[in-house]
């Protein structure tokens, strides 16, 4: 029970910090809006007829997954920020499990990402994406799953980085290629072999495909836009989460103590 309370309070702290940082709330909407509005709008006008499905909707569903995954992963960088502000000592000397600390952090950053999502969904509805209330409710648990995968991926990448500066330099490198490998903006059903391999080992691929498989569940274009299916995506995400979470926490804590 103590661990649950500790996870809740660590997560709540991250969420409180977001609410007090208005600049961050606004800045997080800019990229998704550009992706959906500009990229989605232009591709929709030029490519939709050939593809046989609505490109704006395709990108919208992709951006949902990409934003949740990336926002949670990048949010984990604040662990290093805490270290540089000397606050991490307070957390690391507490008598709770190291996994609880990291999980609390991931959960907190998931809440932050989900807050962003509200704005993105509203923007999508304004520019004409169809999304029913029932769809949103069905998607909520899957949103959270995507966040958890992103967070675990974040701690795994972060576990070998020592400063906030190096984290800010490395994260775009591991995130940006995944936008394309995961098929956020473009279909990836057919790819040349090297890209195919990279695409299938990229965690974001499964995050994006999971949300599309749920979003398009009753749609006639399901087979055209979804790569795998919900159970396969969940299985891969579950395995990746376990490896990233355990490996990342172990490495991060080892580097924290062994100096």
């Amino acid at each position: 029970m103590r661990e649950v309370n500790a996870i809740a309070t660590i997560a709540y702290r991250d969420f409180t910090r977001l609410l007090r940082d208005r600049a961050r709330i606004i800045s997080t909407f800019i990229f998704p809006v550009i992706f959906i509005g500009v990229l989605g709008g232009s591709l929709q006008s030029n490519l939709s007829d050939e593809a046989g499905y609505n490109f704006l909707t395709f990108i919208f569903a992709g951006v949902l997954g990409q934003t949740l995954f990336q926002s949670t992963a990048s949010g984990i960088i604040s662990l290093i920020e805490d270290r540089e502000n000397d606050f991490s000592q307070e957390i690391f000397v507490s008598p709770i499990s190291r996994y609880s600390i990291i999980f609390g952090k991931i959960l907190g950053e998931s809440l932050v990402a989900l807050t962003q999502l509200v704005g993105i969904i509203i923007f999508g509805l304004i520019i004409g994406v169809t999304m029913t209330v029932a769809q949103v409710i069905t998607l909520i648990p899957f949103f959270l799953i995507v966040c958890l995968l992103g967070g675990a991926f974040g701690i795994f990448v972060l576990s070998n980085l020592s400063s906030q500066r190096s984290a800010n330099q490395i994260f775009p490198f591991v995130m940006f290629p995944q936008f394309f490998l995961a098929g956020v903006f473009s279909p990836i059903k057919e790819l040349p072999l090297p890209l195919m391999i990279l695409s299938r080992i990229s965690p974001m691929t499964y995050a994006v495909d999971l949300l599309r498989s749920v979003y398009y569940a009753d749609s006639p274009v399901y087979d055209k836009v979804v790569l795998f299916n919900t159970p396969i995506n969940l299985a891969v995400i579950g395995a990746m989460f376990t490896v990233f979470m355990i490996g990342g926490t172990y490495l991060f804590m080892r580097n924290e103590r062994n100096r």
Partner: protein
Amino acid sequence: MYTVSYYNKLNYHLKLVSAKVKLEIVKKKAIIVKDLVKKYRKAEKNAVDSISFDVEEGEFFALLGPNGAGKTTTISILTTTLSKSGGEITIAGYDADKESSLVRQNIGIIFQNPSLDQNLTAEENIRFHSVLYGIYPFAPTFSLMPDAYQKRVKELAGILGIEKEMNKPIKTFSGGMKRKLEIIRSLMHKPKILFLDEPTSGLDPLSRKTLWEYLRDVRKTEKTTIFLTTHYLEEAEEADRVCIINHGQIVSLGTPEKIKRELVKKFITADSKDREKLTKELSKHSYTYTGTGPFHIMLDGKSAQDVIKSINTKLSYLYIHNPTLEEAYLEIVGNTQTEEKGATAHA
């Protein structure tokens, strides 16, 4: 009559003996450090080089040394935030490596740099700590927290005179207020041992004074063992025992009085036009002396007057060296500080 009084006497003695036995049992070790070694990665020298000491329960123990001596390294290892390279450590009866979670439960720490979340209010910082240590269950607001918590926070804020500031972000706090808040926070879970890593660095004299007054009160009421690191001699003099370290090694360990006796070397500096005669005379009295003139003649417990009286050679120069503890301490650490500069980066 006789037998009754005899019986009473016996009983009295037995009570004394049992009290003594009890005292022995109660006087447990709060901290045991054995041959502690720490070598940072990529460092050439050991930051902490095989130090051993122990601290009794309820004791006020001060680790004194210049910057880069290994104080923060030692305290970081004792508080489980840094791994050691060798040695054994027991804190509150638990192994610092294998039972680190139990160690953490029993200690409170004031870090060298304030470790408060600047974006949270004072109360939120305390609430975060309380929930993390499992004292109270999580609640998102102050008013939803249990009454016991609300009462304790108000009480502590009252002691420090910061009732009005409890709901303001830490950003607006002065250095002294932050320090006090950290002490309140570290005592929330009633730790057996309180570690303080240079708690007064960066504070003005008045803040330092009030902080010490508060700490003295805490010691009296909570009976907490205190482990302090400092580079201020006058702070260490308050301790029951002081351990001076330099270059990661123990220079001196004992009560402030014992340290004074050990460190403060009194000697006479004297010179004469007839140095040969003087040295002969010094050897005759078997005084220990150094130098080829002027000579440093160690007093070794004798009074300066007695030594001077015993010398008949006409002196051309005479000086009695009788340093204060501060001067003696500076002599020890001053000799080595310039060469240390390269190795201080980690401490």
